[in-house]
Structures are given as structure tokens and as C-alpha cells.
């Protein structure tokens, strides 16, 4: 091999290496963004962060497990910057897994003007969130209330029979957040695809 040949091999080699690393680089950048939906899916499957499904689920037709009772607590909070109140009519219910239940929540806009808000749910312990199926929930969409308006909205839910036996209390917290016009326009999350809801 002459010196020129070697130079040529080197240059080809360098070009090949650079191309490959650039491909990996682009791949990893895309991967970082892919991690966001992947995380959502992962959370939905495992209940990692205690979020619940964003769309209505179907009641699983199964027998009610009368052998045990689970306490479901409801906590409501309203965040800063919103003259709204969110209250739950029943703070705590005792249910059998498999049984479907209805609980009513009250929204009240105490401000003078119309505004919009959305209730964001969180379940603790997070493992329970995959076993909490919501058939109807005000949390699926944002609410718009005129100044002084009041709204009663139901939550219909079911705890599946697969709920681990060591979970005896499930706490469901709703935090009411204001929806800013800008945020609504460019929100990253449209309705999340619901793969396993049926």
C-alpha cells in the first residue's frame, strides 16, 4: 500500500465513522423526545406516577369481590391564580373491588368573569392507578364556568378485582389548574390514545 492509498483509506474510514456517529446522534436526539410518550405509556401500564387514564373506560364485566373492602379517599385542591372552588360531596367511600360507584364533585367559579380550568388527577399508591377505571369523569376535559356559576359533576369509577390485596386505601387527589388560552392552543397532549381501555 502506498502512502496515497493509505491516506485514502483513512479519509474513507473517517467519513464512514463520522456518518455513523451522526446517525447515532440524530437517533439519540429523537429518542430523547420519544421518551416522553414512552414514559406516558410506561406509566399507564405500570401506574408509575399515579396518573390515571385521560379518557373514559368501559366497565369490566366481572363479579363484585365481596370478600374485601377498600377505602377510597377523595381530596380536592385548587391551585393559585384561579378563583374557583372544587369540593367533593363524599370525602371517603368504602367499596368492594369490581363494584361501580358514583361520587359527586362541585365546581364553583367565585370570580366575576368566565374562566376555564381542568382537574388533574393523581392516585396514591401509584400501583393502584392501573386498577382504577373511570367510566365518567369531569377530569377528561376542561370546564368553563361563568362568573359565579356552579356545576355538579359526577365521577363514576370501578376498582378492578386485580387490585393487589395489600392495598387497603386508595387516595384520589384532584388538583384544579387554570387553563390559559395560550396553553390550550399549543398543548402537547391531545387526547391520549387509549390502547387497552376496552
Amino acid at each position, binding site marked *: *500500500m*502506498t*502512502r496515497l492509498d*493509505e*491516506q485514502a483509506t*483513512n*479519509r474513507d*474510514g*473517517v467519513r464512514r*465513522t*463520522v456518518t455513523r*456517529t*451522526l446517525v*447515532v*446522534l*440524530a437517533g*439519540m*436526539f429523537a*429518542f*430523547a*423526545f420519544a*421518551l*416522553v410518550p414512552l*414514559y406516558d405509556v410506561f*406509566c399507564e401500564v*405500570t*401506574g*408509575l*406516577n*399515579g*396518573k390515571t387514564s*385521560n379518557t373514559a373506560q368501559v366497565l369490566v364485566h366481572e363479579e363484585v369481590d365481596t370478600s374485601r373492602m377498600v377505602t377510597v379517599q377523595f381530596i380536592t385542591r385548587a*391551585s393559585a391564580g384561579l378563583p374557583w372552588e372544587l369540593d367533593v360531596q363524599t370525602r371517603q367511600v368504602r367499596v368492594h373491588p369490581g363494584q361501580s360507584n358514583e361520587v359527586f364533585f362541585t365546581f364553583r367559579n367565585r370570580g366575576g368573569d368566565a374562566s376555564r380550568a*381542568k382537574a*388533574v388527577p393523581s392516585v396514591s399508591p*401509584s*400501583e393502584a392507578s392501573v386498577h382504577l377505571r373511570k367510566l365518567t369523569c369531569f377530569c377528561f376535559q376542561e370546564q368553563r364556568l361563568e362568573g359565579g356559576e356552579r356545576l355538579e359533576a359526577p365521577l363514576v369509577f370501578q376498582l378492578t378485582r386485580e387490585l393487589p390485596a395489600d392495598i387497603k386505601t386508595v387516595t384520589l387527589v384532584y*388538583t384544579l*389548574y*387554570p387553563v*390559559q388560552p*395560550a*396553553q390550550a*392552543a*399549543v*398543548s*402537547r*397532549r391531545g387526547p391520549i390514545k387509549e390502547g387497552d381501555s376496552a
Partner: protein
Amino acid sequence: MASHLPPKPTPQHSTATAGGMAEAEHPRPSGLMRWLLTTNHKEIGSLYLIFSLTMFFIGGIFALVVRAELFQPGLQLVRPEFFNQMTTMHGLIMVFGAIMPAFVGLANWMVPLQIGAPDMALPRLNNFSFWLLPVAFTLLLSTLLMPGGGPNFGWTFYAPLSTTYAPPSTTFFILSLHIAGISSILGAINIIATILNLRAPGMRMMDMPLFVWTWLITAFLLIAVMPVLAGVITMMLMDINFGTSFFNAAGGGDPVLFQHLFWFFGHPEVYIMILPAFGIVSAIIPTFCRKRLFGYASMVYATAAIAILSFLVWAHHMFVVGLPLVAELFFMYTTMLIAVPTGVKVFNWVATMFRGSISFEPPMLFALAFVVQFTVGGFSGLMLAISPADFQYHDTYFVVAHFHYVLVPGALFAILAGAYYWLPKWTGHYPHLRLSQWHFWLSVIGVNLTFFPMHFAGLAGMPRRIPDYALQFADFNLASSLGAILFGASQLLFVLVIIKCVRGGEKAPARAWEGAEDLEWSVPSPAPLHTFETPPEFHPHQH
């Protein structure tokens, strides 16, 4: 082992220059333009090293502001909001401005010399990736003067403190981190291309010195995780400026997602800052033991194993965010497993010393101190891996002690060891022996006085990142602050050593250290601007 490898067919060289990448033909500009436009790996290496030393002192001054405020309980010198900017800036500058560029600088200087290449594979890109750094850090430092101050959310910039609740300058912080990240990526590409393509004929992968090996693996880590960091800060930028809600619970996002993404980058980043240090120490210890490195192959494998495991342990930084039990267990187990390859490295270094012929020149002193103190940092790392105990350690000064042990008497000492080891090659003179020894001993005392008491402060219950603390932590903090002043001041000796070494001193021969065997010692000291234009003859035995 490597010596038994069948030699590659060695190409014949008919003419002088072989690399073909050096650009000696053009007349070289002089003065400032020479440095601005240089594409020579040695000059760029020097630029990186000088830049990193400058950043080390700036970051050090920030650390001293922090330590001065913590000297006594009570608020004396700075307001809490400025204190938070100081801790944040100290972290960012030391990680991205001092340690990483120092390693890139050493790689620029030494990788071509150690593999017998005439220059880096992509010299012009090399120049560009260096000059991005001063831009990035000027921008980062300028945020301190902006209304609302600079970044004040810690170097881990957890959302939503760094998004919804961040000062207005955060957009500039993101921009500067993007630029620094691009610089790291370009540097990594260049190093990979150089190592894979420009080795001296006859040098196989398993013949490469360990510094080259560890840097190759580090560069792959950089390629893999810097884009993730870029992705995370881009999402932050969008949350702040474009109304998205990646990390904002109000819009359906999740602040914990930020931590997962950040540490998916952040944990490999930790190894980016320590693997090249392993390489440096693995070069120095055999030299001054006059004995080949014990277990070369297992060193390479252990480095690779650490690199791979580093992608599987990220959530051990998040044991108290409320992970499910299974996740806690998974990350606890993988984290404990990392101790195995790390232990192998330490055992190999000790076995290299066993039945060697050991002398204690300044590079060796720093390398030995590295082994001991890095291992201390490793021990506290092992303790932190135990998830239940981490509920007590997390976010306390115990953690601060741990990662400073790994990074200061660890990574930084390895960089200093490397500097003392290669200074004769860079300048042609040995560093002043007495001054070097003073520098070493004062640094060792200072660093341990600074960081050892932090273990106790953390265990006793002192959280990190606080400008004021309860009275029972006062003694520990007093000791730490005194140690920090000693350590900071003794680094001025290092500058003195370098200046003296550049200007004169005992002349060094090509093989400056008796037991040194890698290729860089076959070129004259100081190394001429252009080396290995004819590929050297490589005898596979040399590391």
C-alpha cells in the same frame, strides 16, 4: 495478552508524511490569529487546557463564595438568592467548563501522540468545537448580570423550579448549555474518528493505551447522552417560551419526567467525568512501578461494563421521588452491581503496585492519592446505593461529600496527575520538584479537610444547597471552609509550577520517565508541532 496478537500486515511507507491530515503547507498566521485559526491538535489541546484552568478558577471563586457564607451560621455575606446562583454556577462551570474540557484537552494533546497519528481526524472541526466553549461560558456567566440574576436552581435544574419559577435569564442558560453540548459532541466525534481510523499501522484495538480506550468509551457515552440533554433543555425552552407542558402538571405534564430524562443523561455524564481519569491513572501507575499494568484486558472490559451499566442506574438519584417498589429494587440492584467492575479497577491498580519498583515523582503522588480518595468516594457511593439508607442520605451533605470525593480528589487529581506526567512532553522541562510536592501535599490536606467533614454534616442532618444552617453543623462547616481556602490557595502553586515549567527548568529527554512506554515518549521533548507525519513503527507490547 496483547503481545500475542498476530501482527497486522504493516504497510510500507515510501514517503515522509502519511497522516495527510496535517496542514503544514500554508503559511501560518501569527499572534492572536494563529490561536484563533489553529488546527493543530497540540495547540488546540493547550487552548482547551488553559480554558479549563481559567474556568476552574472562576468556578473555584464561586465555591469560595459559598464556603465563605457557610463559614458561620447566619447570613453574613450574600443573600440567599445570590447564594443559589453561586452553587448553581459552581456546579455548571466545574462540570461543563472545567472537568470536561480538561479531559478533551488532554485527549487532543495525547490521543494522537499515543496512537501515532499526525493529528486529529478532523482538525478544522476541532478548532470550531473549542471556540464554541468560550462563547458558551461567556454567555452563561453573563446571565449573572441579567435582571433577576442567573440560574439559581442547582446544576440539576429540576423543573418546575427551572421552568415556571425560573428567572428570565433561563433562556440564555439553555442556549449556553446547547452550545457547550454541541462542542462536546463535536469533540467526541473527532476523538472517535481519530481513534478508529488513525492508529499507527500494527496497533490493534487491544494494543491501545488505556487512556485511549477510556476516551473512546467516554466519547461513545457523550454521543449517546449529550443529545438527550439537548432534548431535555429544548423541552424546557418550549415549556418556558412556547406554552407546552412537558414538565408542568397543570397542562398534563410531569415534573418527575424531567428528572428521569435529566438523569438518563446525568448518570452517564458522571462516568464521562471519571473514565478518562481511570485511563490517566492506568498510564501513570505502571510507569512509576516500572511494571506492566495488571489485567489490561479486564481494565478494558471493566470500563465497558461501567459504561453500559451507567445507562441502567439513573433512577438511584430519585429514590425519594416516590418510585414504585419494583423500580426502587431494580435501580438499587443495578447500582450495587456497578461496584463490581469499579472494584476490579482498584484491585488491578493495587496488583500493579505489588512487586513493582516504585518511585514517588509528582505524577505518581497524585495518581496514588487518586486511587485512595476515589475509593473513599466509591465507598460512600456504595452506601448511597442502599435505597432504604438513601432515604436518610439523599440531598444531604453526605451526597455532597460523596460526589466531591469522586470529582475533586478523584477526577481533578487525575487531571493534575496527567498534567504533571505530560508537562515534560509539552514543555521540554520537568516541573519544579519542590513546588510540585508542596502543591501536592497542600492539596491533599486541603481537599480532605474540605470534604471529609461533609460526611458527618450530612449524616447529622444537614441538607445540601442551603445558605444558612442549624448550630449543630457549625464545626463541620468551619472545617470545610478553612479547608476550601487552603485548597483554593494551593492551586495557585499549580499555576506557578506551570509558568516555571514553560519558561525553563530541568531539561527532559524524549522518554521523560524511566518506566514510561507508550508512543508519546518516542517523540522529542518538547513535542514538535508536527509529529508522526511518518507513522511510527509500533511494537505491540508497549502499554
